[in-house]
């Protein structure tokens, strides 16, 4: 989450004060991403240093100091919005590692390990879904943030379901030597460390 660009986006609507920026940031993200006021000021100072925002020189430092976006700031924001985040490298996923390890540890039932994680994820999803239930209190920003979280958790559950099925099939098929798939993948894709 780039606080820097989120603040630029808010300032693209017009000049604003620091405290106002914090409030609007939290409103837009449905309070899913709480932000402390210190983060807002540090970020604003850096944006000013980089020439992406300007402040009212007349006002004192503090909550009443106003900021506005510069032309460079608008260019930066437009470029950032269209730059895809780097999703090309598989992240080192702790859950994936646990399941791969569980499969190799003697006397550990990998299906039981998978179920522990599946239950935890579904319980988390139940909590997020509870937030969706009351549509009256559900603004667009909040809805999108909650949906994003649910789709992310759902994809992990789907991976666990697929892994469960693969392990089940592998148990009934004749064993074959471990293929060097992971090292090859790591060399090719350069897995993050």
């Amino acid at each position, binding site marked *: *989450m780039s606080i820097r660009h989120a603040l630029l986006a808010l300032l693209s609507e017009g000049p604003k004060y620091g405290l106002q920026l914090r409030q609007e940031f939290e409103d837009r993200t449905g*309070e*899913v*991403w*709480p932000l402390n006021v210190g983060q807002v000021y540090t970020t604003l100072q850096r944006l000013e240093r980089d020439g992406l925002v300007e402040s009212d020189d007349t006002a004192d430092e503090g909550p009443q100091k106003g900021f506005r976006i510069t032309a460079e700031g608008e260019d930066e924001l437009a470029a950032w919005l269209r730059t895809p985040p780097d999703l090309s490298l598989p992240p080192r996923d702790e859950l994936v590692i646990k399941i791969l390890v569980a499969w190799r540890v003697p006397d550990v039932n990998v*299906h039981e390990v998978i*179920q522990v994680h*599946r*239950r935890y*994820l*579904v*319980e*988390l*999803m*139940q*909590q*997020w*879904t*509870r*937030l*969706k*239930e009351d549509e009256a209190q559900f603004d667009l920003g909040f809805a999108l943030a909650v949906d994003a*979280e*649910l*789709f992310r*958790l*759902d994809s992990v*559950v*789907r991976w666990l*379901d697929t892994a*469960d*099925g693969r392990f089940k099939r592998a148990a009934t098929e004749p064993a074959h030597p471990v293929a060097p798939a992971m090292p090859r993948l790591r060399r090719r894709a350069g897995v993050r460390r």
Partner: protein
Amino acid sequence: MSVLELRHVSKIYGEGAAQVQAIQDISLSVEAGELVAVMGPSGSGKSTLLTIAGSLEEPTSGQVLVAGTSLLKTSRADRARLRRQTIGYVFQDFNLLPGLTAVENVSLPLELDGLTARKAHAIGLKALQELDLTEQAARFPDELSGGERQRVAIARAVVGNRKLVLADEPSGALDSANGEAVMRMLVAACHRGVASVVVTHDAQLASWANRVVFIRDGRMVDQTMPPPSAESLLRSGPNQ
């Protein structure tokens, strides 16, 4: 008293070498107002569990009580009547009757129960209104979108004074917005006091339930704990 109670229910299909144990020793109670999701991979026995819960099929052993009564102990005619009055079914492929309009589909079970056609029609229309389907009432199933068809099917399942609604992959081929609409309707029915069991492999749908039961190879292997308040999610925040 639970609206649905399964006691040590097992179901075996076939005989001898061809024998398949579809579900094994499943016990489950569902209270009025509760929405329970049953999650499991295909072939895990979830659909069998639902047909047995709905008394559409007999278990090989164990007991099924709906509102305290074992429907299987009643005569065929009584069973059909009790099933129609007490249980609503929602299927993946909607199962609407093609020759009847949306409102006729919804009011049919009421007419079968002896209500006059006019009364049944009025109640059916009201059920459709509540689900925002007034405009679709006079249309035939093939004139409705997939999402509309499934909403009509749910209206049919909850109309009257049904105590139990059973749904098998109710949003099977629907997109996620329609899937969510379907789940919201079931949640609303539960808020009115209906008990509901939804079978699904979809975690996003299951997460609308008060309780999620996991089934694997015909056995119930786990279930979710009652969730803590959702407020805890907002306090922590994913990026903090």
